[in-house]
């Protein structure tokens, strides 16, 4: 069994998680501070979660393909996105983003408002409040968000095959390997990859529950 899809998947999912972590937190914080446009912005940010991944992939292909301005610009810079593992990162980040964002936002909303108010009356700047109070207090929830986002990025298929293709040894992730194995009739190989994916996802979820429960008991 060729294990490259495993390494590619882990590399792609880990990189995508780093990006979604920052973007998701920024988006969550931004939406909290919005007034009237909150619903609209929230809807926009959540869109990749409800759209079929192949549609997300199609949009990304439109955006980064050679026919678009951005695609042309990237090509001139020598930064390849289409049919590269970086493209897979974009696809995975796009679908994992709403999960990171929503879970982090939920965690922020659970933070006791009095803590924030107290900090404000003591003259703490908003940036410091975010990093010193909001983030530390919401940490279990944020950690859960990271793990969920990672698991989602790991399982990404539809958008990935569209933008990164299915090149064995280069952009073929585990989920894509399952599809390819099924299509070529190699069911045994498909089941093996399914087992690997299930194992990693299960461990991730178990880990998440462990973190959330332990922090919960601490009585934040």
């Amino acid at each position, binding site marked *: 069994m060729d294990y490259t899809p495993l390494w590619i998947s882990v590399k792609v999912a880990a990189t995508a998680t780093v990006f979604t972590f920052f973007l998701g937190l920024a988006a969550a914080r931004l939406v*909290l501070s919005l007034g009237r446009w909150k619903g609209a912005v929230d809807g926009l940010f959540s869109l990749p979660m409800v759209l079929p991944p192949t549609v997300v992939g199609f949009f990304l292909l439109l955006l980064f393909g*050679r026919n678009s301005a951005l695609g042309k610009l990237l090509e001139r810079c*020598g930064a390849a996105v*289409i*049919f590269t593992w970086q493209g897979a990162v974009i696809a995975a980040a796009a679908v994992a983003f709403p999960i990171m964002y929503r879970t982090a936002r939920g965690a922020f909303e659970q933070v006791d408002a009095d803590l924030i108010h107290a900090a404000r009356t003591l003259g703490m700047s908003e940036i410091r409040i975010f990093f010193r109070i909001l983030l530390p207090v919401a940490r279990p929830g944020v950690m859960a968000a990271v793990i969920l986002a990672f698991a989602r990025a790991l399982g990404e298929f539809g958008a990935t095959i569209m933008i990164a*293709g299915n*090149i064995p040894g*280069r952009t073929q992730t585990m989920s894509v390997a399952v599809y390819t194995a099924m299509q*070529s*009739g190699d069911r045994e190989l498909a089941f093996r990859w399914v087992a690997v994916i299930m194992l990693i996802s299960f461990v991730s979820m178990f880990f998440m529950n462990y973190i959330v429960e332990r922090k919960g008991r601490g009585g934040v």
Partner: protein
Amino acid sequence: MVNLFLWNERNIRKRRSIGKAGSGRVLRIVVLAVVLVFCGCGRTGGGSQEAVELTVLAAASLTDVCDEIGERYEAEHENVRLQFSFGSSGALQTQIEEGVPADVFLSAAMKQMEALDEKGLMDSDSVAELLENRIVLVVPADSDMDLSSFEEIVTDKVRIIGLGEPESVPVGQYAEEVFTSLGQWDAVKAKANYGSDVRTVLSWVETGNVDCGVVYATDAYSTEGVRIVAEAPVGSCQRVVYPVGVVKESIHAKEAAAFVEYLQTEEILALFESYGFTGVNSER
């Protein structure tokens, strides 16, 4: 812990300005990271190698045979590296339409190839019919049913038959054509169980959940679990053709054309045949 959704509403005005400042810093970090990943590692893939890299977009049903062809071709042509990307023919068509860097397209149906050719996205002279797949009737490998032709499906031997959904699954449409030309479609319909794709139908037959099924010859060849008992009568349905062609935008058109020619040699057609395909005569 008190759940207070209100704290953000209470200070809307104040936080609106500051919220942006807080996320601005984070955004800058992200932008920096993006630049590092994409510009830093973007070049490592291509670059120093002398060999020409051909990207071949191939229908997913060709995965196994393409792996073997790739090994052979690279062994014989040291200056060329083949990079296959597999997907459904429709998805591959979309990718070519959106200008992905591809050199050769191997489609599982004429429809996608013709659509691209009409839009001027293929090098028309290079487009050729490469392979043909056959429509076959299969039964479970251990079945002792005495079935030897499509016509016998209406007899009492068969209680239930697996077919692709005629509306959406190509192999289902072909099956409908075959039975319609035999004048038996209405009788067969009464016994049919429709699968969402050809692999589903194949699984049903393998596991004995249907008495028989109509699939492609290549599917039947891919598993030990089924046995071919009949081929669709000649002329009873449209031919199932796999075309090949060079993508117009290819930056290695010469090497791509050479590879397309190689695919049509006797040696490679024999290889395709070992996977259940039939070679199309190059005279066509």
